[in-house]
């Protein structure tokens, strides 16, 4: 178990170092996020819908699309340079490969979210600081579920025609649970509702995370060449 985690960490560190050196994917995901947030401001009528009512959905639509953009990177870099064969030949197990890729994606998406969140608070004038703790928990849980499924799907999508479009078609149906529960909880947090009101959503999201992290780890090896 320790060796699997060690291998996973090595793979994640390799991916993050590659990304840190070029920063292309990170910067484009960040600019994309800022653009989506800005466009949403033009696409609403501020006199009809107050920004606090609209904010949860804007936040989660932005995070979903920015996340999918980030997921594409994980396996496309390996495909471009045919380095996936090297990873498969290395002593690292397939489980470690999945966990490593998922971990790197988690850091990548988490970093985009960490920068997008203050921007979102600024654009939509949402009092973020009062609810920051629970909101970060909600974002973290939703991101884990999303990255678990997304990493698996991107490993398949990269080997299909129109891979980037395919990833969206494959991942978006799976976002209904994490995104709708997270958006619902975000709305309740902004409205300062008591914990008891959003506890059922939290339980459901937790169950989703556990189920899909385990399942995706188990089936990942079938998405690789034998």
């Amino acid at each position, binding site marked *: 178990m320790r060796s699997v985690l060690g291998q996973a960490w090595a793979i994640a560190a390799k991916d993050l170092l590659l990304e840190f050196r070029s920063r292309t994917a990170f910067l484009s995901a960040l600019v994309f996020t800022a653009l989506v947030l800005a466009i949403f401001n033009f696409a609403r009528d501020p006199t009809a819908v107050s920004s606090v009512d609209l904010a949860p959905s804007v936040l989660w639509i932005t995070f979903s699309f920015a996340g999918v953009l980030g997921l594409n990177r994980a396996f496309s870099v390996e495909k471009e340079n045919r380095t996936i064969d090297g990873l498969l030949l290395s002593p690292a197990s397939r489980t470690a490969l999945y966990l490593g890729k998922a971990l790197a994606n988690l850091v990548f998406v988490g970093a985009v979210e960490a920068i997008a969140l203050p921007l979102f608070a600024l654009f939509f004038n949402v009092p973020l600081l009062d609810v920051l703790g629970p909101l970060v928990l909600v974002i973290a849980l939703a991101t884990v579920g999303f990255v678990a*499924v997304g990493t*698996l799907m991107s490993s*398949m999508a990269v*080997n*299909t*025609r*129109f891979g980037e479009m*395919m990833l969206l*078609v*494959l991942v*978006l*149906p*799976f976002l*209904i*649970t994490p995104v*709708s*529960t997270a958006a*619902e909880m975000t709305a309740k947090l902004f409205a300062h509702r008591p914990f008891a009101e959003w506890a*059922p*959503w939290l339980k*459901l999201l937790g*169950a*989703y995370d556990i*189920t*899909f992290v385990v*399942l*995706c780890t188990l*089936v990942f090896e*079938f*998405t690789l*060449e034998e």
Partner: protein
Amino acid sequence: MTATASAERALRRGGVLMAVGLLMVAGVYVRALLFTPEEATQGLAQKIFYIHAPSAWVALYLAYGIVGIFSVLYLFLRDPRLDLLASSSAEVGTVFTTVVLVTGPIWGKTIWGAWWTWDARLTSTLFLYFIYLAYLVLRSAVEEPGRRARYSAVLGILGALLVPFIHMTVYLFRTLHPMPVVLQPGRPRVPGAMLVTILYSFLAFTVFYFGLLWRRYAWARLAAARAQGDAEGGADATR
């Protein structure tokens, strides 16, 4: 040549079952329109239940269940026929889901006054439809048969687990959809004539589903056998 011959035989037999199923479905129309009493409050609009409910049973439970089961079996046994069965069931299931999503709004417009609402059942059916479509699109985007089979099995399994989650997610919202009147605790709350019609419609649609599945599966096997024959014939010609 034997693979082609046996696939052709399966195609004919599947055709017979499909014709029987089609006749039975025609019987549902006759029985529902002529021999079943009209519902007191909903009037004629309620007749659509005899198509809508059995299609939903086939699409949401039977067809998707078979996709999930054969996907798991494929990953363990690696028999290409299991993959063809799962994908045939997905195709047939997509057709039945389309029927559900077309008949539902027709009834909804009459009774609710709106074609569509973001109600629990409607939303979960729509998302199941998206998973079916993703499955079919994924298959069309992968050329190599072994890889296509593995990818679609993985998606089939993940989708089968997503369905209960969609169900629970949308159940946390309120629902407008009528609750089951037949499959519920206690005795069915419908008059005998309606109960007979609805049970018969479930049977008819189930038979029709298996007819379509069998024929689609035989067709897929025939295509695979012919592709193999062509490949071998081509190899002979070059020799």
